[in-house]
């Protein structure tokens, strides 16, 4: 048997253990199952929302009723029964977000400690502020006071609705209109929590902002909503991480993330997605239907998406940039690893509206086991996008012979002065490379991990320093199928 086949057997047979698979035994409070006006009113009242917010949700719900799920992606899954899902879940007795960590349920703190996200500020990752979201509610935000001194608002979106209604009214849904597609409408109707960031003019946010999403309760959907606004001449780097307990049933995660960059502002958004992927037969796991879109609203603005996608049973996700301001820049760096029965259809959409806009796409797909991994991208040059350019590079790596890699790049141009460069490759992990590494004394798993990390390097080096090492380890773990 060749070593590739052996390797594939090791990777697919060995139960891939998911070290975040534990669940927290904490009583939760939930409304009745199912999606209805009542459910939406329940969520809105739990969050003490003003009337206008409830109206906004109900309008989105009306839109959702008339929309069908998008069906063009290369994924298959049983029909989602929207009436068989809980739309809200909060630790019981959770009325108001605790003012200080002393008031947070010790079980919750323990959960985040186990996940490696300590919430006590003296222990937190140096230079990283964390907003921790547990099921439908934000349970803690660290470093808040430090940031307030700079005028930076970093809080849960529920708090922002109450404390900063002018910003929410102005920007929520301005990049992803609630009627955009069915998952966007669903999220707009029932979004529960998520992070809100506002960076004022001329402020460079000195630390990484980060949100950690955890789905705990069973049969619960998580509908997070994140809104980041970078005002003129500002800069922010933001990172989200996610995990969920190992359960037999599928859980729905339909998030919306909106970014707005004003003149000369830059937003760097990184994701390390490690939702439970299901077991090796494809049982369980998160259905991850995510809409992420950034608007470079004014000139010289920049939005950069970096994602490392290793989890979820299904990933449907296309972080996009609308390059409206002149000279604005959009970037998308992606590593997507699929193993066992995972399906990922992920990519980006770069819409060039303004003059001299630039976009760059680097996508690295790695498929193992019986998984299917698709890159889907659209680069669109509108009429007035003079002298704009795009560079796209899509590389796929196959490990074993039962998996699939697909690349679907669309390019549309209504402007003759725009320039597009596209490079794509698909390769199998190379026997010669493995032999070479092993001849130098590396074992098979070390060798594969090294080769794959090398393959992803262009993307991993875009991550903030604090997380790059974590991401490399995660890549190795996803390949080894062993506890890290």
């Amino acid at each position: 048997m060749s070593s590739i086949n052996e390797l594939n057997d090791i990777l697919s047979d060995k139960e891939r253990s998911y070290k975040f698979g534990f669940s927290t035994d904490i009583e939760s409070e939930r409304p009745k199952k199912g999606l209805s006006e009542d459910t939406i009113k329940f969520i809105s009242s739990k969050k003490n929302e003003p009337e206008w917010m409830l109206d906004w949700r109900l309008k989105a719900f009306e839109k959702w009723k008339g929309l069908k799920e998008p069906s063009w992606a290369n994924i298959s899954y049983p029909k989602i029964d929207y009436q068989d899902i809980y739309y809200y879940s909060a630790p019981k007795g959770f009325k108001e977000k605790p003012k200080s960590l002393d008031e947070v349920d010790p079980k919750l703190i323990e959960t985040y400690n186990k996940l490696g996200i300590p919430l006590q500020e003296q222990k937190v990752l140096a230079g990283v502020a964390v907003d921790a979201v547990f099921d439908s509610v934000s349970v803690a935000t660290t470093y808040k006071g430090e940031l307030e001194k700079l005028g930076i608002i970093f809080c849960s979106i529920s708090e922002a609705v109450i404390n900063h209604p002018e910003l929410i009214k102005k920007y929520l849904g301005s990049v992803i209109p609630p009627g955009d597609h069915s998952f966007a409408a669903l999220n707009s109707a029932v979004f529960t929590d998520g992070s809100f960031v506002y960076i004022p003019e001329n402020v460079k946010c000195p630390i990484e902002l980060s949100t950690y999403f955890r789905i705990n309760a069973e049969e619960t959907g998580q509908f997070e909503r994140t809104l980041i606004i970078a005002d003129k001449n500002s800069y922010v780097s933001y990172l989200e991480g996610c995990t969920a307990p190992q359960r037999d049933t599928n859980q729905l995660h339909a998030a919306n993330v909106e970014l707005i960059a004003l003149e000369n502002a830059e937003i760097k958004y990184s994701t390390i997605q490690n939702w439970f992927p299901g077991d090796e037969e494809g049982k369980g796991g998160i259905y991850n239907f995510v809409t992420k879109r950034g608007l470079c609203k004014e000139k010289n603005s920049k939005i950069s998406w970096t994602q490392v996608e290793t989890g979820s049973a299904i990933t449907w996700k296309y972080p996009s940039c609308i390059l409206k301001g002149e000279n604005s820049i959009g970037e998308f760096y992606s590593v997507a690893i699929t193993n066992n029965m995972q399906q990922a259809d992920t990519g980006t959409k770069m819409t060039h509206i303004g003059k001299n806009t630039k976009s760059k796409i680097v996508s690295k797909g790695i498929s193992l086991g019986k998984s299917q991994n698709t890159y889907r991208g659209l680069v669109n040059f509108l009429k007035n996008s003079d002298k704009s350019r795009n560079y796209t590079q899509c590389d796929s790596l196959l490990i074993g012979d039962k998996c699939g890699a697909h690349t679907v790049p669309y390019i549309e141009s209504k402007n003759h002065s725009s320039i597009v460069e596209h490079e794509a490759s698909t390769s199998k992990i190379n026997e010669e490379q493995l032999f070479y590494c092993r001849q130098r004394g590396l074992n098979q798993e070390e060798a594969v991990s090294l080769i794959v990390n090398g393959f992803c390097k262009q993307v991993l080096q875009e991550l903030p320093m604090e997380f790059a090492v974590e991401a490399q380890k995660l890549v190795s773990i996803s390949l080894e199928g062993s506890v890290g």
Partner: protein
Amino acid sequence: MLSIKNLTASIEENKILNNLSLNIGKGEVHALMGPNGSGKSTLSNILAGKEEYQILSGEIIFNGNNLLDLDIEERSQKGLFLAFQYPVEIPGVNITPFLLTALNSKLKKEGKKEIDNLTFAKNIKHIASELGIQKEMLSRSVNEGFSGGEKKRFEILQMSILKPLLSILDETDSGLDVDALRVVTDGVNKLRNPESSFLIITHYQRLLDYIEPDFVHVIHEGRITKTGNISVAQEIEKNGYKNLI
């Protein structure tokens, strides 16, 4: 150090090695010469553990170990090194951490203390400069975009860092200009000591002008047909293989 007894091996039903025997003692340098298709590269691949060959009979003892029972990486960790004829490119994998991982897996196996990044970075720079290798090379990816000569220099650099007991050089000299050949041969000569042995596979006597072998073997149709001293190589250079096979 290495004792090959009556080795017969095939690939896809084709017998390539036919009852081959060869003994390499501690500290000895052996050259193996032979026409194309005589089994030279097959022998080096089998010694390193490449998996596509079938061993039909015979045994190989390497430093007291039954070599054929060992995995590829175990052979390396026990001190067997192959300088490849065609070193493969590994994009994105930086040379320095790659070699550090390799060295540490060996040290770990030997129960020795692993070496840290900083010390290693110093060592590798020192060894590279001794071999006349530009230090810019050390920040590149393994073999990526290397010229033929650079690839071979890098093989020798790796050999110098891992300090193997047995180094097999598979036509390392082919396609090299005089300068690169000098790097390769200097590297071998620096490592020559009473503990390390070499098996040098080559087509040309030219290499043996720089590295003086203790023995020269001629391989033909998968077996050793002639063993002697440097005069065998000289005879090949002069008259070809016709009198030796």
